[in-house]
């Protein structure tokens, strides 16, 4: 009995989702649908890379230096074994791209998750509590806004390098990267959430919750948060693209991930070294993958922003 009600509720929610304004606006924009399709396919391909990829580029036992710099299959000198050719260490480029995309998406998502959690929490606290806490948090945000995100990430990387021995550095390169991205992007969330929290704070339902005697953290999470989270979703989407670009840039500059666990940025940076010898494929295919993925995410973000903006409807 309870099961059927649960099922009915679920189907009705699905039906509601398919009948919503958002879904209709989604269906009426072919470019958005294409972008969503590309994001979906690439994310799935990255997720299932170990099963799709012909070889594991991280496994030294499967990589032969003799196979280095082989052009794509359809060109002169291509090897049928390597669809998109190989890089300078003999890794199959197609496999390396799948694995690299996996690393890039993973870092992008975790980095943005950190930025979002930090930013939303600080924004809520600043907006709800106000006073000195508010001005302290917002002054920090102001100072940080003076610097572009990439510079912040570079600085954090440099400081960590100074504090740690070089051996430990490779092991935690992933963590450092994720934290630098998180710390570089939190300001936007904090400002947005603080702004909407200030508006919500004066509403009757919050006053009522206070009168009932609910503790402040509970009011913030249960009552304020759901009402201020909307604009955050849009920033979130666009920021995933930005975070992936930042990761790629840091890896390209040689302060991101070590070449043994290449992301798309590392692959591009390797390929850049072979551009002049005519081995164009090493830089081209990872570059196209990166650009296509970020472009699709940005298209989705743009659409979401317009679709959620009541002024444009």
């Amino acid at each position, binding site marked *: 009995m309870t099961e059927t009600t649960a099922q009915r509720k679920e189907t009705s929610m699905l039906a509601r989702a398919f009948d919503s304004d958002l879904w209709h606006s989604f269906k009426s924009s072919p470019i958005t649908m294409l972008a969503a399709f590309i994001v979906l396919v690439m994310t799935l391909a990255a997720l299932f890379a170990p099963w799709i990829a012909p070889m594991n580029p991280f496994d030294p036992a499967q990589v032969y230096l003799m196979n280095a710099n082989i052009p794509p299959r359809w060109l002169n000198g291509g090897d049928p074994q390597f669809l998109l050719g190989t890089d300078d260490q003999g890794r199959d480029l197609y496999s390396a791209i799948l694995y690299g995309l996996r690393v890039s998406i993973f870092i992008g998502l975790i980095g943005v998750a950190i930025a979002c959690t930090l930013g939303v929490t600080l924004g809520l606290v600043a907006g709800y509590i106000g006073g000195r806490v508010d001005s302290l948090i917002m002054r920090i945000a102001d100072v940080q806004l*003076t610097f572009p995100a990439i510079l912040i990430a570079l600085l954090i990387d*440099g400081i960590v390098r100074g504090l740690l021995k070089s051996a430990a550095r490779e092991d935690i390169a992933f963590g450092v990267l994720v934290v630098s991205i998180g710390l570089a992007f939190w300001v936007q969330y904090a400002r947005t959430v603080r702004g909407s929290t200030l508006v919500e704070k004066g509403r009757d339902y919050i006053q009522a919750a206070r009168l009932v005697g609910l503790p402040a953290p509970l009011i913030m999470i249960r009552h304020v948060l759901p009402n201020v989270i909307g604009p955050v979703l849009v920033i979130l989407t666009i920021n995933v693209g930005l975070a992936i670009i930042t990761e790629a840039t840091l890896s390209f*500059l*040689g302060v991101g991930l070590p070449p043994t666990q290449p992301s798309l940025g590392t692959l591009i940076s390797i390929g*850049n070294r072979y551009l002049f010898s005519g081995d164009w494929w090493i*830089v081209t295919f990872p*570059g196209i993958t990166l650009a296509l993925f970020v472009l699709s995410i*940005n298209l989705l973000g743009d659409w979401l922003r317009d679709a959620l903006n009541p002024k444009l409807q």
Partner: protein
Amino acid sequence: MLAFILRRLAQSVAVLLSVAIIAFAMFRFVGDPVNQIVSLDTPAEQVEQVRKDLGLDKPVYIQFVRYIGNALKGDFGQSYQFRQPVTKLLAERAPATLELAFMSALFSLLVGIPMGVYTALYRDGFGARLFQAVSLIGVSLPTFLIGILLIYLFSVHLGWLPSFGRGQVVKITENWTTGLLTISGIKALILPAITLGLFQMTLIMRLVRAEMLEVMRTDYIKFARARGLKTRAINFGHALKNTLVPVITIAGLQLGSIIAFAIITETVFQWPGMGVLFLKAVQNVDIPIMAAYLMMIAALFVLINLFVDLLYAAVDPRLRATIRES
């Protein structure tokens, strides 16, 4: 008005001070500055002497005051990598970066504004849609990828333009060299300037387009039309002129981030500027250079911000009124 200026000045000083605290903390606590100067077999008394010379035996707040004092005199200490004063190293490389930043800002304005006006006036035309699509791609492509693409096309494939360095430079003063006076210098500047300016260009294009669309709806434009003014005069004399204030603000604010973003472009094109110096400092944990660069960028942003705010207050009567009220 005077109160407003004073308040803004105080804010700027506060921002600079907090950045200075960060820079000092980096200098003092990330690695031991003494270890970077002495070698392994330096006798202990000499190590102590160096520590005293650097003032590291004093309380931290005195060290901080001393650090600020030195910074104000333009002394940021010695680079660990080069064993030379940081200020000298930065000054040597500043002309290259400034030249690059200035040219790319110029490029983004000269191309971005006309493109924005065009896309706003012919909103549904083919050209406008094309520009819009190109601008979205420009935002999505990472700077370094754009640089690599341009190098591949114009240097490797076509062989028209050089892919690295500044070309032949001319010395103007002791510290100032320029590539703008030789043909090879100008040729070397083209690709990096476009790479660096492309993102700002799309930003300016989108901004001009949005502002133009807004202004075109206002009553005074309708009135100008009703008076029978020529379309050209309306578009450029009335509409564009009123969009330029926010555009110039954003362009000014972006100048700072252009200099910061030059790190990437300089790396791609092996441009001998401050960005490459900073990146090398990050890779080799050369804290004095990192700290000095941080302070420099902060000072630049704060100065530009302050200038823009004061300019706004001077230009916009509405803002002046609110300042007077508060």
